[in-house]
């Protein structure tokens, strides 16, 4: 576990850069986290996914996978790859300040 400073606030992250305590996250941190993941301006569509990720995390204890996002977030898998290229669920989890989705074990 390491401490990283984001938007001027110290937060706890793991080796892979995921938040270990999602309550430390605030919306102000998202643009900086997005820039670090090579994503430019966050649009309403990005925010729809980020909010969905956090809701799911607090309800179920883990963030959703791309497939679940495609079924339930209101954003199709195709668009998810446009918004968050390469690994949408992982990247969105990073920006939404939640741990890496556990779908994959």
């Amino acid at each position, binding site marked *: 576990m390491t401490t990283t400073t984001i938007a001027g606030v110290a937060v706890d992250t793991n080796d892979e850069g995921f938040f270990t305590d999602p309550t430390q996250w605030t919306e102000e941190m998202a643009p900086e986290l997005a820039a670090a993941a090579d994503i430019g301006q966050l649009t309403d569509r990005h925010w729809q996914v980020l909010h969905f990720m956090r809701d799911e995390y607090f309800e179920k204890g883990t963030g959703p996978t791309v497939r679940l996002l495609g079924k339930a977030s209101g954003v199709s898998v195709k668009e998810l790859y446009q918004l968050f290229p390469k690994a949408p669920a992982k990247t969105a989890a990073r920006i939404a300040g939640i741990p890496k989705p556990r779908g*994959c074990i």
Partner: protein
Amino acid sequence: MSTSIVILGGGTGGTLTANRLRRLHRDDDVTITVVDQDDDHVYQPGLLFVPFGMTSVDDIVRPRSRQLHDGIEFVASAIDRVDLDADQVHLADGRMLPYDVLVIATGARLVPEETEGLTGPGWMDTVFTFYEPAGAAALARELAAFDGGRIVVNVVDLPIKCPVAPLEFCFLADWFFTERGIRDRVQITYATPLDGAFTKPSASEALGGLLADRGIEVVTEFNTGEVHGEGGRLVSWDEREVPFDLAVVIPLHGGAEYVGRSPGLGDAVDFVPTDEHTLRSKVAPNVFEIGDAATVPTSKAGSVTHFEGEPLVANIEHHLAGEPLEPTFDGHANCFIETGYHKALLIDFDYETEPVPGHYPGRIGLPLLKDSRLNHLGKLLFQSVYWHSLLPGRDLPGVGSAMPTAGKHLPTRSKEHAP
């Protein structure tokens, strides 16, 4: 009045749960009923060996009903839906089964139709899966006749049953074509949605090294969006392509369809939300899960299902006695990874502990994270252990439910620091 326990699914988990419960309830105070849609119990780990002619489908299938001890009722019917409010199961043949305790053991279902093009032109011609008996048998014919070209092994997305099986397929294919003397004419590619060979970093490193040694190309973070069987290419969502002459695809998995038809029972892909330590469902206090049907965050594997048996049955007993449940299941998983040339690797892990080197189950035992002949023998022996010890619901000598640590080279931080 007698208590009625209904178990949905007569595969690995349903069978071993029924047999364990029956041993505890010898008289008629508890009735145990197992429902399954067919009477063919497949030893699924054997499906890996069918494509290479190392076994046949006939050799890995036995009647389900005969794996159940006397006094357990077997009902052969598909399940239509569960009514959680009325504590009733509705069967496809019109019958209704009331229950006091329900155990969901209907496993995972392959959903190839969810991937564009996968079941279109080329399916079972240039595109196969070995995850079910018909596909495995068809692939055996195909591989025997294959005389060179590009083979891609592709996992569409996780979770899948036995996430090491696709890697094992790559290793066995390398061996198979080497033995046939045409390995130099066959290109083997492993396309995975993960960022490495496996989900757990330490094992990923060891397995990645083995793949490289065997000349198997790995394409990572490949999320299959489309399969063109006729054109011979996989296309990812981010528009990368992997060409093939023969594709071996592990389709998306979901839970059983009836879960989706049962209000309040499952999640968006029909798995049943389950407490990862007690194995009680999160949907009703008298509904429990075992095996691949549950959402617990560990591998979907027969070994996990076996390790769940003891804590599950203990908690069903606590529930019947009106006692609090015990959070004893630790996510223990144990997988032999067949690497070909009469060798295999063994990994052992749980919710908190990564697969590490050492020996299993104690200081003297099978080598972990290292390929050896002993592990290969272990994998072969597993088939007989499966029919004769695991399904009857016996505890295996020296192999407890909880993950052992004695023979492992663990980092100083271990289980007691778990969150």
